[in-house]
């Protein structure tokens, strides 16, 4: 529906290769193993899930051309009949069942699909997904690239092959993976959505953010993900480049360790929230590329509640501290992993909390140690980010606030509040959107008051591209599609 | 006999941080074609410096040739360009250094090292040069089949012979040997000296032999020059000097070595030590150690004066001026 690129002329004017750069390599080409964004950016081109989302996070058809709810716990999907795997074999309901079963069995990604009880093959092109209990975000979860559909025949024959030579149904076929270097993909001429216009897409690994910008500027890559905040203006002001920004599904926040004194005291937690000036952080460290958050659910996701933010108020914070019995403040440890921007933010927080007398020691830990220590509740405060990748609040609320999810799954404030648990569970098992929102509203009310976390901001998804790139759409979860992307010569 | 080398009033000094070392202090010398001059003196007397000075190999910095002339074959070597001087070295004047252990390049075969000097000066290359190198080896008594070996595979005496082969390869008219046998055992020293003598006569080479061993001088040299603190204090035909030493220092040297012929209970050494090279005494350099020294010796430097024939000495006492 965009007329512009066609006018530019046909293939003659287009490059046959588009290169995009990201900060980390795919961990695994197997969509049921590699679950981090850098892996999913590649899986997304090679594989398809049953359903997917548009840029406003509405569920739209993909491999399933349509679906219907048979009951509270049963979904029927009608699969397209024109889908072929890259090896030429046809996609059938068997493949879908096999893939979902495989995902459920995977210790890496099962959390995405473990609401499923079983998958039935109704006929060659129909599958029925039965859930254990009514589960509202079912469709959203199935849009996740980790619910990708793989070929049963190939994967069963050689279970290892998918790790080195993944065969999917997506717009791009896998060509080559040079670990640490690049993944090369080739247009799938038989793609059910039509052949992509760009012959090759290459994902290049460039770990240093500054280097990604430079590579973009020098034309070594056409598209660069995750530019560092201070480089955004360099891209937007460069006439040869453009900066694409979109709302993201990620929120950044502190989790207070409610097991530890003095953070077991609600007043202290509230005081800290008042004492942090998130707007300044966004304006300076993020160069404006973010939005102050009142909760950890991104506005674009289902279930978002526009609760009142804790506006920056030093006096109030001091007052609360005094009420809590700490008029002169106290010492505390803020744990953060070794990412520069996060450390910078923590340093700002450190300096802001100093104003109300809290002496914060920023403890920078290497990721593994960070996870370990915060799982074990060694922190007073921890700096975390969370992406609601399915754009459904349950994806975030459950692991972060549910009392069964202490430690590793995500609840590192160690909040254990029966009401909170109840609202989360209720919202999960009803398919009724309105009822769910009710629950979430009540939930946010408690959370906002209890303040197990201090939401800081939502960041933006940013992508820098060359001016010649057309058809690139920013996807809130960061899983951008290359189906329509072209680059003029 | 024709004069091959004449040194006139040569000064060489080293400018070091400790001060200026006047290592060669107005030396004048003559050497005839075919004859051998022994240069005797204690550590630090300036023997090596003089030899290197003739070769123009004084390291600069810190060394400097301060003045004088070195007339070799009618040419003043000090006036030659560097390139011209290179053609003199190895071709007309060769030098042998004290320590055979360190004078050969450890990473080149002995043949290469001999052939190098040949190919530089004789304009022959490759095979021919190495053929000649082998001949030279045979000449110094080393079988040609060992020519591909490296210096470390040779014993000290053999190394010194290789060095002699290098020095004589281009048939130089002057060979300067700086303590060529000091590092060797007596039996080996005897072999090497014998061979040098033979080759020298065969090739009609003149030689300056530097040593502090009076015995070696006796067996090898026609003339002898005694050096003390950068000066030649006595010079003459071997027999004149050895049979009739004039300078108290020369006498002292003879008194210091135990004789094989007579028995003495105690030696008669020169008292004291070599003076500090950076602040030499006023007057006669030897005066603080000299038993005859008088007031005059302390204020005034004696001049070289003839004793008889070629025999000259630099001493007021010997000249009867005290």
């Amino acid at each position: 529906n965009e007329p512009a690129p066609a006018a530019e002329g046909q293939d003659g004017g287009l490059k046959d290769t588009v290169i995009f750069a990201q900060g980390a390599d795919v961990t695994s080409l197997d969509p049921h193993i590699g679950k981090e964004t850098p892996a999913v950016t590649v899986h997304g081109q090679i594989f398809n899930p049953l359903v997917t989302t548009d840029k406003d996070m509405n569920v739209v058809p993909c491999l399933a051309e349509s679906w219907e709810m048979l009951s509270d716990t049963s979904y029927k999907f009608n699969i397209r009949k024109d889908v072929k795997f890259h090896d030429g074999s046809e996609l059938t309901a068997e493949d879908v069942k096999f893939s979902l079963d495989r995902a459920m069995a995977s210790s890496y990604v099962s959390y995405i699909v473990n609401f499923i009880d079983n998958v039935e093959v109704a006929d060659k092109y129909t599958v029925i997904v039965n859930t254990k209990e009514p589960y509202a975000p079912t469709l959203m979860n199935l849009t996740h690239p980790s619910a990708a559909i793989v070929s049963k025949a190939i994967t069963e024959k050689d279970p290892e092959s998918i790790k080195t030579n993944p065969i999917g149904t997506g717009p791009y076929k896998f060509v080559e993976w040079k670990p640490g270097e690049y993944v090369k993909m080739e247009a799938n001429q038989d793609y059910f959505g039509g052949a992509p216009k760009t012959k090759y897409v290459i994902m290049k690994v460039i770990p240093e953010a500054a280097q990604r910008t430079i590579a973009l500027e020098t034309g070594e890559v056409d598209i660069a993900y995750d530019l560092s905040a201070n480089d955004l203006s360099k891209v937007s002001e460069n006439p040869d480049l453009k900066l694409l920004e979109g709302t993201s599904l990620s929120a950044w926040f502190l989790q207070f360790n409610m097991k530890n004194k003095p953070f077991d005291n609600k007043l202290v937690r509230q005081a800290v929230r008042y004492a942090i000036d998130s707007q300044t952080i966004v304006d300076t460290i993020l160069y404006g590329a973010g939005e102050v958050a009142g909760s950890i659910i991104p506005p674009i996701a289902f279930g978002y509640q526009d609760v009142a933010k804790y506006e920056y108020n030093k006096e109030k914070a001091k007052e609360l501290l005094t009420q809590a019995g700490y008029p002169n403040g106290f010492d505390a440890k803020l744990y953060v992993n070794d990412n520069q921007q996060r450390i910078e933010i923590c340093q700002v927080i450190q300096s802001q909390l100093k104003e109300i007398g809290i002496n914060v020691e920023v403890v920078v830990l290497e990721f593994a140690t960070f996870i370990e220590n915060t799982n074990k509740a060694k922190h007073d405060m921890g700096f975390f980010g969370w992406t609601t990748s399915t754009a459904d609040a349950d994806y975030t609320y459950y692991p972060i606030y549910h009392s069964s999810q202490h430690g590793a799954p995500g609840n590192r404030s160690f909040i254990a509040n029966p009401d909170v648990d109840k609202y989360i569970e209720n919202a999960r098992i009803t398919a009724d959107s309105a009822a769910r929102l009710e629950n979430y509203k009540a939930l946010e009310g408690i959370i906002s008051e209890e303040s197990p976390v201090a939401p800081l901001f939502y960041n933006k998804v940013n992508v820098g591209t060359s001016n010649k790139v057309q058809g690139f759409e920013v996807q809130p979860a960061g899983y951008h599609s290359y189906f329509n992307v072209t680059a003029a010569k | 006999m024709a004069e091959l080398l004449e040194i006139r009033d040569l000064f060489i000094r080293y400018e070091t941080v400790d001060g200026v070392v006047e290592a060669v202090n107005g030396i004048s010398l003559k050497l005839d074609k075919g004859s051998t001059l022994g240069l005797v003196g204690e550590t630090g007397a300036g023997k090596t410096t003089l030899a290197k000075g003739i070769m123009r190999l004084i390291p600069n910095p810190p060394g400097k040739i301060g003045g004088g002339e070195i007339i070799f074959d009618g040419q003043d070597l000090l006036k030659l360009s560097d390139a011209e001087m290179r053609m003199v070295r190895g071709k007309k004047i060769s030098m042998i250094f004290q320590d055979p252990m360190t004078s050969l390049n450890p990473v080149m075969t002995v043949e290469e090292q001999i052939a190098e000097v040949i190919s530089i000066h004789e304009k022959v290359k490759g095979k021919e040069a190495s053929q000649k190198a082998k001949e030279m080896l045979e000449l110094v008594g080393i079988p040609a089949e060992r020519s591909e070996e490296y210096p470390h595979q040779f014993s000290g005496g053999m190394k010194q012979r290789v060095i002699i082969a290098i020095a004589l390869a281009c048939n130089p008219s002057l060979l300067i040997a700086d303590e060529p046998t000091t590092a060797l055992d007596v039996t080996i020293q005897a072999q090497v000296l014998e061979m040098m003598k033979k080759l020298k006569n065969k090739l009609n080479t003149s030689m300056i032999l530097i040593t502090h061993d009076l015995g070696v001088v006796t067996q090898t040299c026609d003339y002898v020059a005694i050096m003390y603190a950068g000066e030649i204090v006595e010079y003459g035909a071997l027999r004149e000097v050895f049979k009739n030493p004039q300078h108290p220092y020369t006498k002292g040297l003879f008194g210091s070595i135990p004789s094989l012929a007579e028995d003495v209970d105690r030696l008669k050494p020169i008292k004291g030590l070599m003076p500090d090279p950076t602040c030499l005494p006023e007057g006669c350099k030897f005066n603080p150690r000299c038993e005859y020294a008088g007031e005059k010796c302390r204020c005034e430097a004696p001049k070289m004066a003839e004793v008889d024939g070629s025999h000259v000495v630099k001493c007021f006492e010997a000249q009867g001026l005290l």
Partner: protein
Amino acid sequence: MNEVEKDQRKEKTLFQESWRRFKQNKLAMVGMWFLILLTAISVATTVIDFATNKRIYDTYVISQNLTLRLKGPSAEYILGLDEFGRDILLRMLWGTRYSLFLGAIGIAASTVIGGTLGAISGFYGGKVDNIIMRFMDILLAIPSILLAIAIVAALGPGLVNILIAIAISYIPTFARVVRAKVMSIKDQEFIEAARAVGAGDARIIFKYIIPNSLAPIIVQATLGVAGAILSIAGLSFLGLGIQPPMPEWGAMLSNARTYIRDAWHITVIPGLGIMLTILSLNVVGDGLRDALDPRLKN
């Protein structure tokens, strides 16, 4: 008379003699003065912290002014402000002690440990030597940055642990240097002379071997400190450096690298600081080697 003169002129200790030779090396002297300056700054800032109960540190060195971040040098802030709007001049001054002394203490530790192991190894030879040196081979075979990362990861972050990591990764180097030196001294005649008058191992080690192997150790240590400073900067780059907001130069440089194109001064200043320090350590090390090397005597 002459002798008397000479003896008076030459009455100098070994130290004076080396010092005289060292002084001739202009470059090394400049380096040394720079290091002295740094040391003085470190002492001064430490004293100030102590006297003011860290007030200056808290209010000027680490306190932020985000509105002025990345501001370039000006009359008010001679070296400009960093990414948090902190005064870089003050941070450089206060950071001196970390940069210089982290390296120095780490290296001192590895010198002592590595030196002792190397000395034992070189002195006793045989089996002991074999065991110690094989162990050093193992340590050497593990890339030192990996070792450092692993150690920091294992022990957790912090000054002390970085010190430990640095110290351990330099042990093999020192062990080797000292071992080689001890072995060369061990065979010298003056050791035999000491044995001939009945000196035992301990006396020989402490009175004869150690004083004589000090020179190369000092030189190696100087160079080691330089290396350690770079290693710390490298660790910072990998995110394992000093905990913020400590103004350690390596961390300053590494953190500033993101802004290298936005504000030249915030990388160039700590970069130059590190460079000059290391340059100084190196020229001083080289100068010491020349000054202490007995072969260069007279």
